[in-house]
């Protein structure tokens, strides 16, 4: 571009034709959600590190406890894995604004999340330790508690979106939120798998 010699009016870059909603990585909330998952992921990573650090402090692991019983945990693992299907359905159908598919996806995801929360309550009853017993028990309880907090948050968020999908508010950027909600659900599932590996797996096999 050659500089022009005389003061003249600026040129224009007209953006009026650009869309007002973006899905996927172009959405600003999507990016914020990635940052949020990074923060929460760091929390989990540091708790995992804490768990393994404490493990080096004692000779036997679990120290004087039976490992947490895997019955409800196994059931919950299956529920979490299956729940990815409705989460993906809602995410795939959100951009097209297909309200029926979105409602079905969100309703099914909510149902899975409710079952997961109920199973989680039972999981707490078979941990075979109490948080105040020793450092091992504290770590087990905080790990499962941390994940349960995320599970409950995600259930509430999904329920809110489900209710919203029955109102005229479910348009434009809210549809992008449905897709982002599914991303966050995957995060809850993956962190749940890792947590299960720690509290059910490493107490038995490692």
């Amino acid at each position, binding site marked *: *571009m050659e*500089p*022009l010699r*005389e*003061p*003249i*009016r*600026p*040129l*224009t*870059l*007209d*953006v*009026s*034709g*650009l*869309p*007002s*909603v*973006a*899905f996927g990585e*172009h959405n*600003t909330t999507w*990016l*914020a959600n990635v*940052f*949020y998952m*990074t*923060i*929460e992921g*760091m*929390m989990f990573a*540091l*708790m995992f590190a*804490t768990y393994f*650090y*404490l493990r080096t*402090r*004692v000779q036997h692991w679990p*120290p004087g406890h039976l490992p947490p019983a895997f019955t409800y945990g196994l059931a919950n693992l299956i529920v979490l894995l299956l729940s990815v299907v409705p989460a993906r359905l809602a995410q795939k159908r959100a*951009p097209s*604004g297909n309200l029926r598919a979105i409602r079905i996806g969100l309703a099914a995801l909510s149902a899975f999340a409710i079952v997961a929360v109920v199973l989680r309550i039972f999981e707490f009853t078979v941990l075979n330790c109490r*948080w*105040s*017993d*020793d*450092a*091992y028990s*504290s*770590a087990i*309880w*905080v790990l499962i508690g941390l994940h349960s907090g995320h599970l409950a948050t995600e259930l*509430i968020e999904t329920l*809110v979106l489900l209710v*919203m999908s029955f109102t*005229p*508010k479910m*348009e*434009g*950027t809210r549809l992008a939120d449905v897709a982002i909600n599914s991303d966050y659900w995957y995060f809850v599932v993956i962190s749940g798998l890792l947590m299960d590996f720690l509290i059910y797996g490493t107490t038995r096999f490692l």
Partner: protein
Amino acid sequence: MTESIIEKDRQVTRLTPDPELPGRLERTWRQHGGIWGWLTNTDHKAIGVRFMVTAFIFFLLGGILAALIRLQLMRPENSFLGPDAYNQIFTMHGSTMIFLFAVPMMFQGFGVYVVPLMCGARNIAFPRLNLLSYYLYLGGGLLMWIGLLTNTGPDVGWFAYVTLSGPGFSPGHRADIWAQMITFTEVSALGVAICLATTILRHRAPGMTLNRMPILLWEKLVISIMVIFAMPAVMVASSLLLLDRLVGTHFFNPAEGGDVLLYQHLFWFFGHPEVYIIFLPGASIISTLVPCFCRRRILGYTPIVVSVIATGFIGFGVWVHHMFATGLPQLSESFFTAASLMIVIPTGVQFFFWMGTIWHSRLQLRLPMLWVFGYFFVFLIGGLSGVMLASVPLDTQVHDTYFIVAHFHYVLIGGALFPMFAGLYFWFPKITGRMASETLGKWHFWLFFIGFNITFFTMHFLGLRGMPRRVYTYSPDMHWQTLSAIASSGVIFMTAGVIVFIVNVFRSRVAGEIAGNNPWGDASLEWATSSPPPAYNYLYPPTVNGRDALWDALPDQPVVVGLRDDIRETLVTHSLDTEPQHKDEDPGPSIWPLLASLTISATFVGSIFTPWAIPVGAPPVIITLIGWLWPRGHSPTPMRGRESWSH
């Protein structure tokens, strides 16, 4: 790709000024008036200034505590403060300066005010999250200071090591208040990190590609990412400490399989990156001011950016040098010595290119630049004693002495406070529309600079003579009184300097010379709009043609048109090449961030006293968050119709 769009339109349309556009934009973007307007304000400029003013008030409070400490240590066997009051005061001084002043001022305050303007954006991304972050920060500050005023001030040092801070040695709620203050301030910093990183990656002006991004934006991006990775560590540390104290977990209790060093690892995994979270904003101000006052482009743009990124990485690999005295394996000591020495390299690279930029330039030694030179002098001394301390034998010898106190005050005051004053004088005209007094500013500088060096340079010698930190008094037999008295005398100069600064601010904002848009002739975008900027920042959002946006602008540099003026529409561009991608809508003022911060604060504060605060506090928090996020206001418009979505 950006050039292609600019090029395409260049042949088509020139701007036809619309005399009524400012009025329409003002109506759309203005905030509510009165107290309601203050409580609901989502304008990044107002919140940025609010962060700065609040942080500065905490700086003054922390400074008063420092003066009390120096008064107590002025002579041996002084009975001005008792041991209990002294413990609270030095803990509060450190915690206030780090968590309530340094980070909120340097990262949040400057970042929230400057970054959106420098990007050419109409507002920060997620302005309501930004407002919530401010309220939570304020809540954390009030919690800790109300604690002190009710004789419940934290008294376990600013890093609250277990076992001292554990349930066995710190009954009562002093340590709990410290731990929850951490939660408040770290959630605040994390919220702002998300806002700033998203603003930088998604709201830059068309043409401001990554390769043309001002160094300040690079640094804010790196710092935001550091905050996102580092702050969770201190939240985990302080939360586990709270759980140990409140519900009887045993994370840090060696008798039940816990470990005290685990706390130190978690704390310093945050704590050392924190040093760079405080120092890099200072460096970003230096990299902004040096080229401006040298009237030339910065030398070594790419090496400086690489150095900043390298600092961000290496900063996570040096935390154990805070723990050299804990008897760790020699191999890990050697590793962390090497890493601590290595991090000098990127800082040295930045120093080299700042010097190179100044060398043979047409230097204008204006007031902000005076502070930059103060930074060079003070930070360099702090950096050099830092190189000494990276060596394990020397660190072990002077561990927990005043040598360490001298070192980190040179680094933190040099790395944060001097650039802060440089930055405040630099952006003062943009914020207020008026110039600060150079004469008063020079008095401020010299008083502060001399006072600072009297106080803290002396502490090196006190440390080498074995004076430990955190002792409330000492015997005359130790022969520390002369040096202690000299160190205390510097406080008089620093106090006088800060008073001159306050006078200058109050005087200049009403009687200072009118500044105009760009009083320093700087190159970055915030100087392209009026001082102070209007609510909508830019009448026409700018585009960028080079690294120094205003210096490289064409006479007919394109401006962005086509954003709606009846709703708060903002432009979203591609993270890398800033190709315009879509339009977004700024959510506007709201009371919900305040309500959410109140419910969150009540839960946090309640959990100091009982674990039931979490289940009882959760429903109100959830209700306020749903209230916040539930869409309301105008119905969808054709602009937001489904036909215009990008898939």
